[in-house]
């Protein structure tokens, strides 16, 4: 009987180790460095965290994880942030108004097939908690000639990199949206030629024109 219990324990342990997704996690590292990180609603800047985890059941045997936010535990994956933002646009019917990407096709998503879209906009995540995404009109996006920034994110909903940061080029009119405020794309309200504001959930994001750039701050 005792032998059977020990054997069952070995089998159980082996199943846990081999099961897909089982991990042995390394420590989170703050890799923010020189990244231009988005704002947090509290007026501070988000941090970027990464770690590698061993994963016996995964195809490569390891997994690279990224988080952003105030702390590595509080924030989520940047890819989840972007996925959630574009999923919101999808459910709101915004993506259906944009052309299908001629180069990306479609991919399987959590809730069905995702038709990858393209548009004449460059997207920049400028704030987390609550999430605010700026959309800069640029026909170069349709031509896929907008230079790729050093750090960017990808989503199956869109066929080009999603930028993040606090500074964006002052070319083309600006719109924004926020999945957290259930706000679909809407023009940035300009208080003057060099200043605009976005207010959601008691947080005010201010855009100030400095030469060829818009610089965002939280007030």
């Amino acid at each position, binding site marked *: 009987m005792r032998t059977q219990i020990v054997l069952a324990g070995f089998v159980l342990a082996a199943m846990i180790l081999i099961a897909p997704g089982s991990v042995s996690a390394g420590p989170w590292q703050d890799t923010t460095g020189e990244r231009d990180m988005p704002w947090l609603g509290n007026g501070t800047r988000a941090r970027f965290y990464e770690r590698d985890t061993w994963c016996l059941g995964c195809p490569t045997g390891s997994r690279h994880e990224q988080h952003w936010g105030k702390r590595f535990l509080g924030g989520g994956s940047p890819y989840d942030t972007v996925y959630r933002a574009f999923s919101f646009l999808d459910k709101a019917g915004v993506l259906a108004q944009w052309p299908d990407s*001629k*180069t990306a096709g479609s991919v399987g998503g959590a809730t069905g097939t995702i038709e990858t879209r393209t548009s004449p906009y460059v997207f920049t995540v400028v704030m987390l908690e609550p999430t605010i995404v700026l959309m800069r009109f*640029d*026909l*170069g996006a*349709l031509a*896929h000639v*907008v230079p790729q920034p050093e750090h960017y994110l990808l989503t199956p909903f869109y066929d080009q990199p999603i930028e993040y940061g606090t500074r964006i080029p002052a070319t083309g009119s600006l719109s924004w949206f926020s999945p957290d405020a259930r706000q679909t794309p809407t023009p940035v309200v300009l208080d003057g030629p060099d200043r605009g504001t976005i207010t959601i959930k008691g947080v005010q994001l201010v855009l100030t024109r400095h030469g060829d750039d818009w610089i965002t701050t939280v007030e």
Partner: protein
Amino acid sequence: MRALASGWVVAAIALASVLARDAGATQHHAPSIARLATVSRAGDLALSRGRITAQDHLDRAVAMTVDAVSPPGTWAGHDDGLARARRELARLFTAATTGDEHARPAWLSYVVRHSLEMNLDEAERLQAITFYESPGGSAWLAKRLTESAHRAFQQPFGPDGEAEAPLAAAATAAAQAFERLPADEREAVRAFTESPAGDRLRCAEDYLRLEVSDGFGSDLELVAARQQTEFVATVRGHLGDALPRSTDKIWLGTVTMESDRTLAATIEHRDAARVAGRYEVRYAPDTRHHADLLAAVPTIAPGETRQLFRDPHGRMSDRP
């Protein structure tokens, strides 16, 4: 845990032994494969035919580099400069690849053997060997080899050291020798080429031609990636005023103002000189992005079409 680790080790050893056995099996070729590779001159034929097919790859590499010399939308009024730039670039690419066709004998030997093994069974290979060793088969092969070599003259990847005349003379002589074959020999050639073995051999040769051509295509892309800046400078240095003015702007497409002042833009997503996607967007006068687009073409009038360019800062205009 040790038991589990031991299990992994045993599995790894078993897998390694299976892989080793398979690797040994694939390295063992039937003697007929080597013999057929020799008598059919499959490698030589594939190189010449691959060079001819590689013309498409050369055209693409030239087109990519022409775009780098000056973007699309800027060549209007420079037809002569465009033609000369294409010729100059074709010459540069051809010179950069000269001699490369003989740079990979091991690879070529491998794909020849692989193709003959995959496409023909043992009986078909023996039939093909007999055919190529016959007077008719030999003359037919000589005709194809010399004709391909002549057609490949001055294509990329060639030696180009020899003059065209000897190649043309050899091709003519081989064609005449084939025409002079006795009727029964010519009938034997027809019978073989229309047989299942002949059909399989043609498949093997086409596979080889495409393998070689694709390899040349990859090489041309590599040359384009490594030497594009140098080639652009050379062409600009040689052709100077015949070319459009140098610009750092990128061509996006065209914009037309319709009769009701709606702006209709056609934007091209180009990938390696080919159109990967073409997108149409329309902005009526009362829409927000009409002003964005009109700022790029402020003097456009209804019925007019302008080119649309983007500078490195993201600003659009109708001038390169």
